């Protein structure tokens, strides 16, 4: 602990970071040249489709680029900025990471889609769609961990909620009943987690893991005992319709991405905003953050630490329940065993990369959503990379993010610790 000023710049390590980023940029430039430049035929065009066939957006011409020139241009940009970084230095690491990602991805797409047409608008639109369950998992993590309760059981909660949603919706023939049931069940499972870790001081990770195992077990049990024999009546709910927002949906590219979605996606975006305001501009948020940082201090001011934690964990569970509902009634209309395939954990990585902020968590989820939808599009394009490796990408990205090499974040100070009076 120190009472001196915190904001001291460390000249040595700042210099080191500057050099590292410079070299990374140059290496990326070279990689672009070697990987894509040498394998792109000269004079071939790459077409980026900017319209979605089904959307209401005003049609605009597609973007047609000469493939090889684009690749070379991206390589040049990366090398140039790398050299500039070595010579002068750019402060914003975010901007540098942005440059790395942008040049590499654009060059990659130009190469992958050479002589073909690639629907960029479609991919952007599916980015938000695929980011939705990850973002909801991340928001669940944010709100629990801001009050210092780690919940790694999001995966299990989402699985259970996904199943409950589709089964209730199928039985009642009403998707909204299914949605509400999923949210309620998500809250209940989270309440159980909260009860274990707050009342019984169970290790938070152990409790979460138990929930994951239990969730996978019970959903698979129900699935193979009931759903498989009665698919039509129990596991066939249909999905929420797309709600098109008049006017706004007419905007090219952005319209189909943001304003032609189903209710769960809109709810997710709304939740991001509401949670941001709640956390940073309301008494409840102030108390939540205090409980997450210094529960004893909050307690001495008459704040009920346990109550705050219960409420936040339960709200988090309800959000995860919404995320679970997305898997079934929000996208495919039926339940498959272990259909969440690690999205709950990826959400946690998004939460960490987003520095425990709702907006940050949402933006990081978009990165995962982008990687996910890219992977699907690439399979369609028949890129000569085995699809299994493309499927690994989100998991590898998650691991890289957890190393903190790109943007280290500090969790709430009391995160994961039980509070004893």
């Amino acid at each position: 602990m120190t009472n001196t000023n915190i904001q001291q710049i460390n000249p040595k390590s700042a210099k080191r970071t500057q050099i590292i980023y410079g070299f990374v940029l140059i290496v990326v430039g070279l990689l672009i040249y070697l990987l894509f430049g040498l394998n792109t035929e000269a004079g071939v065009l790459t077409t980026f489709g900017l319209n979605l066939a089904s959307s209401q957006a005003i049609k605009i011409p597609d973007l047609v680029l000469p493939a090889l020139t684009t690749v070379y241009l991206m390589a040049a940009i990366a090398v140039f900025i790398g050299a500039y970084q070595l010579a002068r230095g750019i402060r914003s690491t975010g901007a540098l990471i942005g440059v790395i990602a942008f040049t590499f991805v654009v060059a990659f797409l130009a190469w992958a889609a050479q002589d073909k047409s690639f629907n960029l608008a479609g991919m952007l639109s599916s980015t938000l769609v695929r980011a939705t369950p990850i973002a909801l998992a991340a928001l669940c993590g944010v709100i629990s961990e801001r009050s210092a309760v780690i919940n790694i059981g999001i995966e299990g909660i989402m699985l259970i909620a996904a199943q409950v949603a589709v089964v209730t919706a199928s039985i009642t023939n009403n998707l909204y009943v299914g949605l509400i049931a999923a949210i309620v069940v998500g809250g209940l499972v989270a309440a159980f987690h909260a009860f274990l870790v707050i009342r019984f001081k169970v290790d938070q990770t152990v409790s979460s893991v138990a929930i994951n195992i239990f969730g996978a077990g019970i959903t698979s049990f129900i699935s193979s005992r009931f759903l498989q024999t009665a698919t039509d009546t129990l596991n066939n709910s249909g999905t929420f319709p797309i709600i098109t927002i008049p006017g706004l949906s007419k905007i090219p590219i952005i319209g189909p991405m943001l304003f032609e979605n189903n209710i769960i996606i809109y709810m997710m975006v709304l939740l991001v905003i509401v949670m941001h305001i709640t956390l940073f501009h309301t008494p409840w948020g102030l108390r939540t953050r205090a409980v997450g940082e210094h529960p004893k201090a909050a307690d001495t001011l008459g704040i009920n630490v346990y109550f705050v934690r219960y409420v936040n964990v339960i709200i988090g569970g309800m959000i995860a329940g919404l995320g679970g509902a997305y898997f079934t009634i929000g996208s495919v209309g039926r339940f498959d065993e272990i259909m969440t395939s690690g999205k709950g954990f990826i959400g946690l990585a998004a939460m960490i990369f987003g520095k425990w902020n709702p907006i940050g968590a949402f933006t990081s989820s978009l990165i995962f959503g982008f990687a996910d939808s890219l992977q699907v599009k690439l399979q369609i394009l028949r890129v000569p990379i085995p699809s299994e490796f493309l499927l690994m990408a989100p998991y590898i990205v998650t691991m890289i993010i957890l190393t903190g090499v790109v943007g280290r974040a500090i969790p709430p100070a009391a995160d994961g610790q039980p509070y004893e009076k």
Partner: protein
Amino acid sequence: MTNVLELRGITKRFPGVLANDKIDITLREGKILALLGENGAGKTTLMNILYGLYKPDEGQILVRGKEVTIHSPNDAIERGIGMVHQHFMLVPVMTVTENVMLGVEPTKNGIFLDKEKVAKRIREISDQYGLAVDPTAYIKDLPVGIQQRVEIIKVLYRQANILILDEPTAVLTPQEVDGLFQILQTLIDKGKSIIFITHKLKEVMHAADDITVLRLGRVVGSIDPKDATPEILATMMVGRDVNLVVNKKAAQVKEVALEVKDLFVRDERQNLTVNGVSFEVRKGEVLGVAGVQGNGQTELVYALTGLLPLDSGQITLLGEAIKHTTPRNILERGVAHIPEDRQRHGLILSFPIHDNMMLCTYYKPPFARGVSLQAKKIFSNAEELVKQYDVRTPNIYVNAGTLSGGNQQKVIVAREFSRPIQLLIASQPTRGLDVGSIEYIHSRIIQKRDEGTGVLLVSSELDEILALSDRIAVMYKGQIMDILDASKVNKEYLGLLMAGVHPTNTATKN
């Protein structure tokens, strides 16, 4: 004159400990009551009961003659009782305003936090009581003295009339202590009443209107400050005559054990906390490092013992320059380390005593042959050390966590002193201990010095520094202000150095 607060027959039991035994205490209106007692006397327990953090097993609490029940801090706040805790209850990553408003947040439109309103109120309180502080500053950026003001403002913001201050001077320089007493006087003048908890004798005589002494959970007696002397108070506090001075012979100084040159160290968050420090410790002397906590002493010790890497600088240990300060490398060269936080670094609380007694040398004979642990040797070693260092424990097989603080510290001292050592680095060696243990550990340290070991003593207790040191270095903001001969300094001078004021050139160092 009325009694604003009365405690009658308060009793509180913890498993195995009677923390408070039928305690009676009276606070008169507009007065400062000092509650004196050594560590473990039950002062903090009593105040936590008063503040609703603990429930008493027996007894009554009377506020202005009316019996009240206090089940939570909210109840206490409602009755006008406010508490400034020994360890500040402030959220470091929040602003002063946010910390003050926490729990009683005014809102705009019933939803949004109204920070401006609170900031305005903080400025009013600041002006009224002379507690200058910037409402928009983040707590983590404020010095300890200012943080204490924020704690007091928090209490006043809740309109408390009875203020409890738990060991408020522990983290302050002598001059800051004077400043605090002035603030307390202002508070009294404006009609507040104060309970002031401490184990420091002189402060009590200086500041209090009434003194009540606690020992082993009981009230020993009350005394008028005018009749009190340090000797009388110490005897009341400890229950026997206390030798306030450590007996020691003049130092027999020999060759240099440790030389440090231009040392720069960063803490875990990469802040430069040791900022170009140079000094040397000779065999047979105690070099005391004084300073308000958080001025780089912790990081200095961590760097010397290999717990933090050096940013730059040179360490020469027993004539050899050390490049890689790993804990094992340092230890193998004959350095003993009594760490500042004994429960974090010094012991594995869930391990039995016998394992803690060989924690640093488990890999060497006689405790290990190859990779195989030698249980018999481990047990006999522990049995012997427990006897030799008077560790009070049922046996050597119980976990270290079951011991009292003093006995835990004795385990560490026994372990560290049981191997041949050239240099002892002792950081806050008596923090939180009772007087008996303090005396014991002090005598052991002096004994090591007289055997020819070099001793680097880091302590934020100025009395401890003055009692043990042969030379004194004062640290402020990561730098050494000066190194002085211990026989030729006084507390006031040290206090100025600790506050970053160099009296000879009257320039404030930053």
